């Protein structure tokens, strides 16, 4: 369960704005976090985000395959991303690094920038504390839940090799 303040963006948030290519040659998470979202929201990286929540529209994370994108958001202190839909490579990358994402078109539409939102990962229930509205996110299939439970794809693989 996490509760945080919402930073909301529009449709088709692409990986070039999440983390511009000019910073990809210094791939440490802390370095990436310093420049996260700066091309569309320079104030985002300026403030700390301990447990805040990012909300996007349709096709969040489209474009490049750079895993640097979910890594940058995660290292910024964002607890999870809620979007109407995710671009498929971003979706894979977030699962593979164990970063929580929730697909919920209704929540992505209704929640406003600056709202306080809580997310129960166990049930997938998203609550907009500012308006009192509840939303149900799309559940992960058991196979993907298992990867997330292991903390990502590589720990999952490692555990399987040992088994």
């Amino acid at each position: 369960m996490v509760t945080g303040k919402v930073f909301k963006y529009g449709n088709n948030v692409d990986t070039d704005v999440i983390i511009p290519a000019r910073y990809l040659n210094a791939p440490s998470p802390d370095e990436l976090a310093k420049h996260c979202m700066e091309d569309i929201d320079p104030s985002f990286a300026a403030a700390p985000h301990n447990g805040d929540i990012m909300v996007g529209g349709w096709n969040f994370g489209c474009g490049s395959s750079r895993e640097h994108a979910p890594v940058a958001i995660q290292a910024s202190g964002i607890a999870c991303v809620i979007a109407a839909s995710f671009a498929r490579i971003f979706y894979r990358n977030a699962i593979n690094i164990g970063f929580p994402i929730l697909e919920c078109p209704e929540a992505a539409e209704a929640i406003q920038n600056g709202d306080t939102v809580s997310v129960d990962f166990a049930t997938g229930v998203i609550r907009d504390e500012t308006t009192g509205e509840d939303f149900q996110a799309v559940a992960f299939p058991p196979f993907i839940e298992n990867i997330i439970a292991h903390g990502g794809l590589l720990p999952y693989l490692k555990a399987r090799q040992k088994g």
Partner: protein
Amino acid sequence: MGMTMTQKILAAHAGLASVKAGDLIEAKLDLVLGNDVTTPVAVKVFEETGFSEIFDRDKIAILLDHYTPCKDIKSAQLCKTSREFAKRFSITHFYDVGEVGIEHALLPEKGLVAPGEVIIGADSHTCTYGALGAFSTGVGSTDMAAGMASGENWFKVPAAIRVELTGKPGRWVSGKDVILHLIGKIGVDGALYRSLEFTGPGVAELSMDDRFTISNMAIEAGAKNGIFPVDEKTRAYVSGRVTRAWTAYEADPDAEYESTVEIDLGALQPTVSLPHLPSNTRVIDEVKGMAIDQVVIGSCTNGRISDMRSAAKLLKGRKVAPGIRCIVIPATQEISLQCLREGLTEIFLEAGCVFSVPTCGPCLGGHMGCLAEGERAVSTTNRNFVGRMGHTKSEVILASPAVAAASAVKGFLASPADLYEEE
């Protein structure tokens, strides 16, 4: 129920008799690809998880193509990490400066990808090899690490959109115009999580280079992959390049498609994407005349020999307009050599273009042609997002090599037909 071409390839690699859209499967990989940007991140997670062996040194390809020849010290460090990893595991297909080309042009050229294979690459444009009738898709660095360690990865079997091609493209219409038209029609998430299955009599009218360009940009419609049937042109291309056995898969007659998009190639016109989304398309005659500062001809989308020939044809005996910077980047060493042998290099240099070593360079605002505030480029690359080629207030118009070359000569966004008629 029947399977699509993509579903058949995935089923075969998962050891299953059949799969259907939505199934989660684990499939064996024929090739795992990484570049100088994504490999170091994969190496880090590979090592941190405690893996000490790779699955097959012949089935991993590492190509240093993005920031090379290294543009700065940080990029040099990344290349060093990749180089040392390749050396440590005696990776067979490691390509460094002097041999390297842009990954999605080089792998088909070297015969490292073949019809019917499953390929993952830590680069979103890995979907290019669908042109050969392979299943190939872009993944992240952790996926690359998992693939290198185990030779397998997980996939959700995609539902499919059929793209039925008919007719024959006109003189100034290339694969780039076909894919930009399709993205404009269905949107940047029009094929999200799905495969694009190209089919119909129009396929035979497209060259292999056209097909590479089309499959390359499947990701710009959100697709998992974009795949073509295997025909005589495919066989001629892989003949002499691929020496191992390969399989041509065909879609079942009763395969299920979520929807069908019909495109009459004969009705298409040269098409461009205005800033800042590939789906923001216009036919050239609607928007010609827009001011530009730079032209880029190259990339994994359009850096192949037919692209070079197409541009050279329009630049021959002409000059790049004053005030325009025209950067030509053949995608591989072989293509560079071919340009030299065919006299194309001379045409470019005499016209006042610069002729670069193979690199992804300006496409992602890396180097070799970044844009300043307020500048606009016509580019044969694949993305025109905010800040993609440089400053956040710069702009990129996506176009074919013919449109790009005509624009370089005219000094503004221009139609190749107009330039040709002036003669």
